[in-house]
């Protein structure tokens, strides 16, 4: 019996301990600040891209506090590290909402991390601002997509190649995951609609972090030497780009011969590459650091001061967070509360100036309107704009070039109030509420 009593004492301690750790942590906290969750990987494979966005958020929140905060309260950033681990994203999102009681979350980079967080955000009815260009085919009540949808990046880029560079043969190269798959599917349909023959389209997928590009680049070279102007549309993700471009340069594929237009290579990725062999290759984004506006200059200066490094660059997802955060601030001010439901309603129609000129507007489908810029890589790691749309393009959640999603629209205003509304059958599907 004595033995057992020891066990019971231990048990009681254990129970008390776990209550203290899990239960109490979530209870009563003084509500003198408005908390904002920052959910970006600071370790693991995605830290390369996401750490910058964490710093951007801290800078934006810092600046808002200098301006006097929001609704008379200070903002407080709650930073967690989901460590590039997708289930951990969901767990951390839940932690931010239930334990830290944040009013909105800014975060995620990869599609899979967003998909992982989505059910949690919807269940607990919070707000997520997602700052990266993505594949579309989604519009959640609780997510605001401040990055580009395919029609704000891929289609204009292909138009440019076709009309200005007279490209006739196409290589669609991508990393094997949902963003490149969707983008390439949309582009393939688009190119075929424009009369490009299937024999003139080559599609290639590689795994994440692919590092040995010799054979694939040799194939591209062969494909491109058939006498017709050829271009590569690259949705190759992050880390795989450095060896890819190095191999291109070494195998003598110059931008003049076979230009590569990339959707995932920005200033920050270029800062980690030897740009000499890349000069002239293209990228399509909604923001370039090189765009010469007073707003952009101020933003760049602010960033360099904040990060205390005059060599740091700015990039497109940073602008997306900048716009998203400011839209959220405006919406909270408009609604007079941080209550997610009220903010979700108030933010639709909110406008905020882009850094590159023009005005971004939050659309009823939770995407924003953006200008599209195409730039050529310069030796200093910046882009020189060679083409841009003359006005902002509205983000389209459901692509018009895919037969399955053509009739679907997203509209979060009455009377539709649905992210997946079929205009033919007049039905709303795929919603959890």
């Amino acid at each position: 019996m004595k033995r057992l009593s020891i066990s019971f004492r231990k048990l009681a301690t254990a129970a008390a301990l776990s209550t203290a750790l899990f239960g109490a942590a979530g209870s009563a906290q003084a509500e003198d600040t408005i908390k904002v969750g920052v959910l970006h990987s600071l370790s693991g494979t995605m830290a390369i891209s996401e750490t910058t966005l964490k710093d951007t958020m801290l800078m934006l929140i810092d600046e808002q506090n200098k301006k006097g905060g929001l609704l008379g309260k200070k903002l407080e950033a709650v930073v967690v590290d989901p460590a590039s681990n997708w289930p951990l994203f969901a767990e951390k999102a839940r932690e931010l909402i239930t334990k830290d009681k944040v009013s909105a979350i800014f975060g995620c980079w990869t599609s899979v991390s967003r998909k992982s967080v989505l059910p949690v955000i919807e269940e607990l009815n919070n707000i997520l601002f997602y700052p990266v260009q993505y594949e579309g085919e989604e519009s959640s009540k609780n997510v605001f997509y401040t990055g580009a949808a395919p029609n704000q990046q891929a289609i204009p880029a292909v138009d440019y190649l076709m009309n200005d560079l007279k490209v006739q043969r196409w290589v669609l190269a991508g990393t094997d995951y949902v963003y490149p798959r969707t983008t390439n599917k949309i582009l393939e349909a688009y190119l075929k609609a424009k009369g490009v023959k299937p024999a003139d389209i080559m599609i290639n997928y590689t795994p994440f972090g692919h590092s040995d590009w010799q054979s694939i680049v040799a194939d591209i070279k062969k494909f491109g030497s058939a006498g017709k102007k050829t271009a590569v549309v690259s949705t190759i993700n992050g880390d795989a780009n450095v060896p890819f471009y190095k191999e291109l340069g070494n195998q003598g594929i110059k931008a003049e011969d076979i230009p590569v237009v990339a959707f995932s290579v920005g200033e920050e990725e270029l800062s980690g590459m030897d740009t000499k062999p890349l000069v002239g290759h293209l990228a399509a984004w909604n923001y370039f650091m090189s765009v010469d506006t007073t707003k952009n200059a101020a933003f760049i200066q602010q960033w360099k001061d904040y990060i205390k490094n005059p060599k740091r660059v700015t990039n497109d997802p940073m602008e997306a967070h900048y716009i998203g955060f400011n839209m959220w601030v405006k919406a909270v001010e408009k609604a007079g509360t941080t209550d997610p439901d009220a903010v979700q309603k108030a933010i639709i129609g909110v406008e905020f100036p882009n850094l590159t000129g023009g005005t971004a507007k939050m659309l009823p489908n939770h995407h924003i309107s953006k200008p599209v810029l195409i730039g050529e890589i310069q030796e200093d790691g910046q882009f020189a704009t060679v083409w841009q749309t003359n006005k902002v393009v509205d983000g389209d959640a459901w692509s018009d070039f895919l037969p399955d999603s053509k009739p679907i629209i997203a509209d979060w205003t009455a009377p539709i109030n649905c992210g997946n509304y079929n205009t033919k059958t007049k039905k709303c599907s795929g919603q959890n509420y």
Partner: protein
Amino acid sequence: MNLQNLTQDKTYASVLLALASVTILIPFCNLIFPEDSALHFSAYSVSLIGKYLTFALLGLSLDMVWGYAGILVLGQGAFFALGGYAMGMYLMRQIGTRGVYGNAELPDFMVFLNWTELPWYWYGFENFGFSMLMVLLAPGLLAFVFGWLAFRSRVTGVYLSIITQALTYALLLAFFRNEMGFGGNNGLTDFKDILGFNIQSEAVRSVLLLMTGLSLIGALLLCRWIVNSKLGRVVTAIRDQESRVRFLGYRVELFKLWVFVFAAMLAGLAGALYVPQVGIINPSEFSPLNSLEIVIWVAVGGRGTLYGAIIGAVLVNYAKTVLTGLMPDAWLFCLGGAFILVTLLMPDGIVGLLRRRIKPKPTLNATGGQPA
């Protein structure tokens, strides 16, 4: 079950009791007490503890095969993920027409890839019983084929460890491929129901935690019974002196195969319990680093003790949860440092430390020989 035997080891008994209390108390508190009560456990804590317990089960499975049979498997995560995928497939089939494209038959990612019919290996997964069978059979079968080949040709030591790593790496690459029909990099997610109940409701969460806890307790008792049975003794003997056992006339490879398959099935069960609680299964679960981490849990907890694996898994993951929130920029320093210190200062893991305090005499199980 030999109760006398159980109570002989106090640590063992207290771990068991702590598990039982967590399993029963937390769902109870979660459901009974209102949300503002101090005794209430939030959904966050419930799913978090549920996750820890599945990891504990996974650690336990590795301890069986590594701690007792001396086979260092660097691919235990593969069996875990396979079990998880089997569960995920069941949950995907339950979505029905509530998917994005509203297709009753095909999951969204297949509609997206322009597939017109369900691939054959998805047949049957709409049935819960069949899925649960596959949760055990898929990893079990893989372990059987792999183990049968490997143990028969007497692949041992690091060679075995590395080819198990190759196995999980190959599966990782395979499951990343969209053509495989398992959702590629995004994996399976956006689950709605389990057995007709909303998977996000508090009650289902609590029941899942209860099920996980019961499975863990059951598995612990079962493992304990196995290692103390004659079979367990032979397996331990193989770990310590394989050739001697073989000369005594035992079919070493069959014993090893048995433990290997059993551990794989346990890992599969852990995976199946993990998926509905975290809401996603994707190929990164196959990554060799994940499997390495399992080894680390067991080593930190103390190998060859069963409950050590449970303590290690819970502690390491709890540390991760706390540190990733408290010091997002420096938590890897702490974790890395902790691993180094544990190896240097606590050769038998945390359990070894506890045991030295409680009982100066080494127990039978702690005096394991060196692994190959």
